């Protein structure tokens, strides 16, 4: 199944990736080549096979509900593009 240009635009929006109109034909073509490779999977009989999500099939380890970390806000905000008074700054979202 080949992707249309409009589907590529939708995927880019879902992934929050800006796309130039000029790049769209090439991006669409490359994605279709990759999906062509991936579609070879459909020929494999996987009836009744349980999906494998984790190679060792272990489940998530739980820890005791105790405070183990200290507040690192200043260290983490020191590497942010824009902060003020401990808050991350973004363009206005509520008028």
């Amino acid at each position, binding site marked *: 199944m080949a*992707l249309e240009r409009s589907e*590529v635009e939708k*995927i*880019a929006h*879902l*992934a*929050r*990736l*800006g*796309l130039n109109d000029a790049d769209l034909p090439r*991006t669409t073509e*490359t*994605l279709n*080549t*990759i*999906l*062509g*490779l*991936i*579609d*070879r*999977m*459909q020929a*494999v009989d*996987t009836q009744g*096979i*349980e*999906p*494998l*999500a*984790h*190679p*060792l099939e*272990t489940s*998530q*380890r739980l*820890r005791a509900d105790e405070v183990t970390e200290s507040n*690192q806000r200043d*260290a*983490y905000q*020191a*590497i*942010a*593009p*824009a902060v003020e008074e401990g808050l*991350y700054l*973004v*363009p*206005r*979202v509520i008028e």
Partner: protein
Amino acid sequence: MHQLTLAGIARALAAKTFSAEELTRTLLTRIEQLDPQLNAFVTVTADQALEQARAADARRAAGENGPLLGAPIAHKDLFCTLGIRTSCGSKILDAFKAPYDATVVQRLADAGAVSLGKLNMDEFAMGSANESSYYGPVKNPWDLSRVPGGSSGGSAAAVAARLLPAATGTDTGGSIRQPAALTNLTGLKPTYGRVSRWGMIAYASSLDQGGPMARTAEDCALMLGAMAGFDPKDSTSVDQPLDDYLAALGKPLNGLRIGLPKEYFGEGLDARIADAVMAAVEELKKLGATVKDISLPNMQHAIPSYYVIAPAEASSNLSRFDGVRFGYRCENPVDLTDLYKRSRAEGFGDEVKRRIMVGTYALSAGYYDAYYIKAQQIRRLIKNDFVSAFEEVDVILGPTTPNLAWKLGEKNADPVSAYLEDIYTITANLAGIPGLSMPAGFVDGLPVGVQLLAPYFQESRLLNVAHQYQQVTEWHKQAPSGF
């Protein structure tokens, strides 16, 4: 001094032939002189390295004598390093200084290793040629017009060119083993969960695994001994005792059962590589190994399965790069959506965007079962193939790569052609088993790698086989001319 292995350096430092500081200065000079030809380093941390070296010398003067005390190494630039740029080969992290050290970085530092800097890589570890880095391609020291492999291409080039005896790498689909093969190194991808992923910037979390790259199996054993082990900070880290990797090296290979999968020797393999691999098999037979033909029938489905699972996990992992909390932010965003979209479009390179989009598509409503679930079902078939094979053999042996190192730019027009180069390495990541590549000869002056695969947590067996092979062969000792 620069020709010494980690083991040789440990002996020389213990014998006071030279100090860690002298060794560090020598290698920093070498990096300054030679790295411009290779582009292996993104960041050289000379001041911190000299400080670590002096600290190692002080520890030694106080009576310590660990095998990595004062040993020079460097890290692939996706291991977070406190206060030092961690770029992941991407513009989006060009100015990112991690607020903490990765567990692997911390453990090697605790063992006394001296880090000389951060090594170039494919952007977000996505690539097999080290050509997708924001910092430009890395060159193969065996032929500067060729790629070193990827994504740990900077690690491979630096160690092969004798700028360092060893480096860290990571392997999601072959990114330690394939560059090791193309540059005449020994590289080990451990069992999934053996080495902590904490502070290792994620590409595909169910496949990623850190490991050592060095010139000998013995040096990989030294590195792994320090890198591996349980880490409560990584929820997929395995709480299982470590083997004594060094002690296992000396075991004779009498009775070792080697499996040769017919799928590894079929169409697409350079016949000259096949000859070199079979010559290695003959050497191992002389050491007492027996050989059996086996089959891994689902190997052919590994690449399609991988190119769903890895991009799907990447699309999720890389959603954290939003231009808000860290990393690159675009100029003058008009609103929040514009901020996200342009920061990501301007910050990520083409290959990363392609994989994010493939993954987003595979996970989107209506396609999840046809792509993601199907890929995970194939993943189980691939694991089952290995489980069956290891009932009959102790290790599986084949070529690491189907082709020799290719020319820079040769596979850029068609990304899928480069994806196919990972055919022999990807299955170990999907199954989670350990794999090692070791030098096994040359074709037209370019290195050939042999890959060994073993059951879960049998890293010591892989290192043992490679070490015994390296006792009777000289391939791993060959250095590229000019370095």
